[in-house]
């Protein structure tokens, strides 16, 4: 069984519209989502604003009650068995919040160690290690309010690790970080997974999801639209493209190309310089040799391959629909 199990999970919010409290409106923030995450996996929830990512994470971190459905982490129900669960998990919300700004970095971590019952003997050592890990060792005794945004975010990471959690939840951890800061953070996340921790993160940065996540779930409007490894998600896309520039083009080449499995369309653009074939396909790497074979007695100038990106996958799934 997975470390995280989510089955037919739903969460509704009741919001009142306008000043008159009686106009109630139900928002289906999470609408029948199911997935499982294995130990040591980095699992990504990808989706636009309002997709239901934060709500899902809050349910899993025992901060929010599900309206219906099942959510268990490490075999404990997230609502009802939180006593056991809370010791073993932690979460990081990608913002500067969730810290005591008027206290020093060290005092912040020390307080959270106490809340997580870290034995006094281990405390000092752990805090120092964590501060070193996030590169704040020389700022340990400065007040958090004097920190830059990136530093606060790194301190948050340290805070999320005070109890040495088995499962770590991260909600848009790199939001607002500069490229270097985001890179450092991704490195830390990878290290944590290598240590055998299970990580569930949300993001709306495609490249980040692509680089970090073993598997990605794409959600929108509370529904799960796709769930797979980044590779497999891209495999199913027909938006990959092989572009071939030719001096001459034999008549039957196009029809023979169209006969290759995984090629969905071939368009020919001809001008006074020659011909350009635009081959729309899936898995361009795998069919490259077949394409080459069919081109043998044409005079090829150049071949270009553009693989579908996660963004293509995402845009296709989310479609023209605007985020909430």
């Amino acid at each position, binding site marked *: 069984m997975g470390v995280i199990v989510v089955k037919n999970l739903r969460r509704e919010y009741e919001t009142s519209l306008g000043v008159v409290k009686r106009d109630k409106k139900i928002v289906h923030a999470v609408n029948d989502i199911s997935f499982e995450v294995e130990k040591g996996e980095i699992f990504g929830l990808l989706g636009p604003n309002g997709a239901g990512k934060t709500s899902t994470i809050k349910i899993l971190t025992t901060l*929010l009650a599900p309206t219906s459905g099942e959510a268990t982490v490490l075999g404990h129900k997230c609502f009802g068995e939180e006593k056991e669960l809370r010791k073993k998990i932690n979460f990081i919300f990608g913002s500067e919040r969730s810290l005591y700004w008027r206290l020093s970095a060290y005092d912040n971590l020390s307080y959270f160690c106490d*809340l997580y019952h870290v034995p006094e003997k281990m405390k000092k050592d752990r805090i120092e290690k964590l501060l070193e890990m996030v590169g704040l060792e020389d700022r340990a005794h400065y007040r958090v309010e004097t920190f830059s945004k990136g530093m606060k975010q790194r301190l948050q990471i340290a805070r999320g690790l005070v109890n040495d959690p088995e499962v770590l939840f991260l909600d848009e951890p790199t939001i607002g970080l500069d490229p270097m800061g985001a890179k450092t953070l991704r490195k830390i996340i990878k290290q944590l997974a290598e240590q055998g921790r299970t990580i569930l993160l949300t993001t709306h940065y495609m490249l980040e999801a692509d680089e970090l996540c073993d598997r990605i779930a794409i959600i929108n409007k509370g529904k799960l639209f796709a769930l797979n490894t980044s590779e497999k998600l891209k495999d199913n896309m027909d938006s990959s493209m092989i572009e071939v520039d030719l001096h001459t083009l034999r008549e039957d080449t196009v029809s023979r190309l169209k006969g290759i499995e995984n090629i969905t369309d071939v368009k020919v653009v001809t001008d006074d310089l020659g011909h350009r074939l635009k081959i729309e396909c899936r898995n361009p790497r795998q069919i490259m040799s077949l394409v080459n074979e069919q081109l043998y007695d044409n005079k090829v100038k150049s071949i270009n391959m553009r693989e579908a990106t996660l963004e293509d996958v995402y845009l296709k799934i989310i479609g023209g629909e605007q985020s909430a």
Partner: protein
Amino acid sequence: MLSDVKVVLASCRLQMKQSFSRSMFKFCILAYPILAAITFYLIYAGQNDQTLISYVFLGTAITSMWSSISFSSAGDIDRERFMGALEVIFCSPTRFRMIMFGKVIGNTLLGIASMFISFLMVTLLFQVPFTLTHPLLFIVSMFVGIISFIFIAMLLSGLLAISRNTRVLMNCIDYPVFILCGTVFPIEVLPEWVRPLSYLLSPTYVLELARMSINGITDIRLFYYHMLGLGIVTILYLLAYLKFYEIIDVKARKEATLEVI
């Protein structure tokens, strides 16, 4: 158990450190008692020492203590919610009420400090000698009073954890309490129909008891009745607060009220 004690102590320490770095709080702790002492003194100037002690000393002491304990505890929930720390502490393995208890204790210690400042102020500024007829009963009354205030603060903090209208609530119970409890004038002045409300609030009893121990007790039974009353409302607060924290855990998560709107 031991870890709970540690959490209470750590939260108490954190609370005091944080409060002290807030200038608004320094104002409440230091300036408020001074200003209140002056105001109350001017109102009662020329009266005999006993009246001065009863109203100027006690009035300032109780109001500054009450503000510090209940209203800072209430405000803290709001502040923590705003900082996003409410969620983080809520989902730690420590029971939420232990954390809040630590914070309230922190505020109480500061409140006691504030009370001493006000005592000192009145003594030094106006040279009113602080004399007590029954020092022991006075200490007992204050002690039970403080415990009662702690439970009220816990109750309020719970109420505020599940309600987003924190500020409104805070502002609408601050002054009415001072009026209802007879801080500045005896509650006999109030219309009869509001008096039951007065007797639901522990400051009423604390003031009454303290005044008796200052001015001398003519009927010891009256003192015991008031002590009993204080005990009963305190137990009511305690029960309500325990019940409250039990439902907070579920309600806050069902209604998603932990975060900022």
